[in-house]
């Protein structure tokens, strides 16, 4: 009973009054872009460190 009520509430929440596609698409795209913006500096930092270590080894082998 509780689970069925919960499931009904969940599908009502996901449906967003018939606008589910628009709402979830908007949030999905936005958070994907934000995640990409957050990952970029992490990748850049790793790349910089890897490069710098390589150059440093070249300097004093």
């Amino acid at each position: 009973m509780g689970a069925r009520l919960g499931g009904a509430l969940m599908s009502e929440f996901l449906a967003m009054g018939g606008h589910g596609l628009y709402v979830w698409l908007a949030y999905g795209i936005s958070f994907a872009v934000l995640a990409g913006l957050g990952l970029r500096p992490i990748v850049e930092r790793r790349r910089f460190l890897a490069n710098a270590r390589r150059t440093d080894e070249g300097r004093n082998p």
Partner: protein
Amino acid sequence: MGRFTTWFYRMGSPRWFFDLSRPWLVGFLVAGIVLLTVGTVWGLGFAPPDYQQGDSYRIIYIHVPSAHLAEALYVAMGVAGIVVLVWRMKLADMFIAVTAPVGMAITGIALLTGAIWGRPTWGAWWVWDARTTSVLVLFFLYVGIMALRQAIPRADQAGRAAAVLAIVGTVNVPIIKYSVDWWLTLHQPASITFTAAPAMPPSMWVPLLVNFLGFYSLVAAFLVAGLRNEVLRREADAQWVRDWVGRS
């Protein structure tokens, strides 16, 4: 030199920024993630539906913060542009370089969420009204700054050209802001202003405020992180950077 002048010139030193900015990065990141999570769950799950638009209006909780941030970032680049031209401050030039792609992405979020919101509300993904068109111009201004930096081989000239475009382009920001008042637009005017009571109940605008602060904090964290990397790249040959690489 006064205390402010000393601070101002120190701020321009990339190394000083790098040494100080790590706690800022952590603080902004934690605040941004917490605020955005709270604001989004609140806005999607607990704020009441709109009496005209139903649940589609919930896109507001990302659309308005991202659109506002997209404008604010451009103004910040304009200010940095003045600092570049007047004081030749390296850190300001780095700020423009790091902010342009982030601003472009945030403007992209504002445009895409606007289009998705427009479909059920206006019946069209896109309309060429003054608001949407001026925000599209903002997007291409960000692209233009990135393109200028790439196209000009000498770094100092590229930096100055980008600074000029950053300054000149800020003219577009008041146009975006007042477009809904100056012209007849399909886009609705602001629901929340400093001068009047909000046109929505607190149960709607408080989560909007939370997400607003969340967007600003999170993107501030991304910019600090990007700026730290930019400092490292440009000062890669300096002894202090090599020492830092050795330690990390």
